[in-house]
């Protein structure tokens, strides 16, 4: 097997292996790039409700009365009073913040976005441990794909022809942007 054939076999097979991860990292990359405009991992909701003011004064009685007035049977995960006028009740899918004297309620929810949540967790290496090894291997695989990719074709469309120009543009792009970023 000559070196070009070995190069192409490596490029092809590593390419196949990288398809799944490339989609995960690509989709998540776009989502995370715009996190100033949205939360890429969670669908955040905020709604308002009005109940009768809470009259109880003891903590446990306040929670009981609030749940009763909200018409919630589900046992909360926890409850907390950040200040004497406010009660927060935590459920799996939502947090209720109640202004006790007025009965104004703000319900905040955070639901993981299907698929995107998982993609982002992997892309941002939230699981750490074993995933760090997988992510490192993928990064190395991308380098191998880039290098072997340059030598897949020979002739006019290869690295000695059009490939040289396109590779040069791809290498110059981050360099030129960095110069622009530093001097703007």
């Amino acid at each position, binding site marked *: 097997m000559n070196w070009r054939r070995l190069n192409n076999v490596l490029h092809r097979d590593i390419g196949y292996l990288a398809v799944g991860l490339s989609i995960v990292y690509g989709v998540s990359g776009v989502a995370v790039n715009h996190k100033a405009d949205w939360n890429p991992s969670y669908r955040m909701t905020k709604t308002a409700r009005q109940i009768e003011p809470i009259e109880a004064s003891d903590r446990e009685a306040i929670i009981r009365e609030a749940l009763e007035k909200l018409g919630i049977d589900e046992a909360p995960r926890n409850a907390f009073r950040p200040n004497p006028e406010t009660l927060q009740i935590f459920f799996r899918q939502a947090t209720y913040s109640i202004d006790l004297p007025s009965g104004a309620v703000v319900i905040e929810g*955070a639901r993981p976005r299907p698929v995107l949540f998982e993609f982002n967790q992997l892309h941002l290496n939230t699981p750490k441990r074993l995933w760090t090894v997988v992510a490192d291997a993928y990064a190395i695989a991308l380098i191998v794909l880039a290098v072997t990719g340059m030598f897949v074709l020979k002739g006019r469309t290869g690295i000695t022809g059009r490939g040289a120009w396109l590779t040069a543009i791809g290498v110059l792009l981050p360099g030129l942007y960095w110069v622009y970023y530093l001097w703007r």
Partner: protein
Amino acid sequence: MRRTVTTAVVMLACASVVLAAGVKKYGKDLTLKETTKISAIYAAPDSFNGKRVKVQGPIVQVCEMKGCWIALASDQEFQTIRFKVEDGVIVFPMTAKGLTATVEGVVSVETESVEQQLEHGKKMEKEMNKPFDPKTVKGPKTVIMIKGEAAEIQDAAGR
């Protein structure tokens, strides 16, 4: 083929039950045996400044932008303490609110100037997507937090 799919589904279901019922670790392992009350830190902040502690409490806030901090409710009402980690070292899930966390780190007691509070307030406004009223800043304020890299959340399903 059908048997393989069924086995995979059953294994996934079992794994979810185990995860749902357990304790989820974040970052490094907890090392301290003794748990310090959050109220004790507030009672004598200077004596805890720079010391390593382990505290426990329900999670009442999570950083919405990066998941890089959580606020734990104290054993006393109206009191919380923030547990801050380096960005990316741990990403706390938004769905952890209300669950009980045990965290370990070093207590930091700092005095924030008015300017620092205004800057911090604006940052928080962005992170938590909640309005910040600069009028609430009245003067320098003592800020107590725990900076760490180890946490465990009880009963977390991982999402």
